[in-house]
C-alpha cells in the first residue's frame, strides 16, 4: 500500500496553485499529479509518486532502475493499469 511509482514530469500545469498540479508520465500513461511537496521539482525531473502525490525527486537513472525492478517483481504494466486506470483484473 506504500507502493510508489516513478514518473517523469512533462509539464507543470499551474505553478501558482497550492497543489502544483503537473502532468506526469508513467511509461506513457499520463496523470495529473500534485507536486506541492516537491517545490524544487521541474519539468523533465523524475519523481516518486504515491496516491497522486510526488514524495521525492529522483534522478532518471534511479527511476529506470526502480521501474525495472518493479517490472520484474510485480508486472508493472498490470500495476499501472490497476493503480492509475482502475482496470482491475477482477
Amino acid at each position, binding site marked *: *500500500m*506504500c507502493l510508489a511509482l516513478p514518473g517523469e514530469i512533462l509539464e507543470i500545469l499551474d505553478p501558482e496553485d497550492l497543489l502544483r498540479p503537473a502532468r506526469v508520465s508513467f511509461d506513457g500513461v499520463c496523470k495529473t499529479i500534485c507536486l506541492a511537496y516537491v517545490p524544487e521539482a521541474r519539468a523533465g525531473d523524475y519523481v516518486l509518486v504515491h496516491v497522486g502525490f510526488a*514524495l521525492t525527486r529522483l534522478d532518471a537513472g*534511479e527511476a529506470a532502475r526502480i521501474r525495472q525492478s518493479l517490472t520484474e517483481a510485480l508486472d508493472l504494466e498490470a500495476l499501472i493499469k490497476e493503480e492509475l486506470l482502475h482496470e482491475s483484473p477482477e
Partner: protein
Amino acid sequence: MKALSEYRDPAAILRQAGAMARQVSRPWTLMEVCGGQTHSIVRHGLDQLLPPEITLLHGPGCPVCVTPVALIDQALALASQPEIIFCTFGDMLRVPGSSGDLRQVKAQGGDVRMVYSPLDALQLAQQSPQRQVVFFAVGFETTAPANAMAVYQAERLGLDNFSVLMAHVLVPPALEAILAAPDCRVQGFLAAGHVCTVMGLNAYQELVDRHRLPIVATGFEPLDILQGIALCLQALENGQPALINQYARAVQPEGNPHARALMQTVFAIADREWRGMGELPASGLELQARYAHFDARQRFQLPDRVNPPTGPGRCRSGEVLQGRIKPGECEAFGRDCSPEHPLGATMVSSEGACAAYYLYRRNTHV
C-alpha cells in the same frame, strides 16, 4: 543500466548472501515492517538465500491488514447510507468487517467508489454538491501527506459535503509494541523505505537508543533487502546498535519537511486500535480540532462499535502480523482461506503475508 545491474545482478545477490554466511556467528532474528518488502522476500525466496542462522519475521507492515474490524464496520455502515458516496483505495474493498466487506455493500446498492488519490474523492465532492462524499483515509506515514492535503483543500474550498474516516497508523509505535512484548524475539528491524521518505529517520533513533538494537531503513528490491539484512547483521555481530540508511537514494535523513508540515497542520497523533494487536498508544492520526468537522464519525454520529465485538474466529492474522506464526501455521491457510475466499485481511491485501505465501509458497512446506 549500470545502476540497474548493480541492484539486480543475481551474482551480486549470491555474493551478498555468501558474505553474510561468512559473517554470521550465531542465530539472529530480524523483522521487516513493510508489506512491499514481505512480498519481495517471499516472491524472490530471499529468506531461503540467507544463512540458516538468520530468521526473518514479517511484521505489521500493511495498513490494510492492521485496520481493525470495528473500523471496517464503520466504513460499511457509512457506505450503506444512501446519501453517501464512499470512496476508498481498492485495497480496502475486500477486507472483512464483522458483517461482510465493502464490495458486498456495493453489490447491495451502496455507492462505493474506488479512487486512486484522495484528491479524486475531493473532486467528486465538488462535482456532487447534493451528495456527501466520505473518503476512507487509510495508510502509513507514506499516505498521510496526501490525505492531509485533501482535508486542507476541502477547508480552503469550504466544502461541507466532504469528510474522512480516519484509519491512519504510524509505524514507530508498532515497533515499540513489538519490542515491549515479553516474548519478543526481534533483534533488529528493517524499516519501510517509503515511510522514511516522508518521515526521515529521527523517530527510529529514539527506538535504537532505548532498545539498543539496529534499525535499517531499507528499499524493497531484492538486493536492497539483502543489503538491509547484511547491514543489520553487521551491527548485531559488532554489538553496536545503530540507525542505518540503506535506501539513501530515496530517503533523506530529515524526510520530506514540506509533507510533514502539512501533516502536522491537519492531523494530531492519537491512540489507535490495530487488528490483532489491540490499542497502541499514540499510534494513529486523527484530525486536529480545527479540522474536526471533516471527521465522518462525528458528522454521521457513528458509534465506536457499530456491531458488538466478535471473537477472533479462526483467523490468526493478529499473530501473523506480529511475526508470531508464519501463515502456513494457520489451520485455515490454503484450505478454507485463499485470496478468492479470504478469512482475514492478511489474505486479502496483496501485501499481506498470508497472500504472499499463498501466491508463492502454497506448495512448499514453509
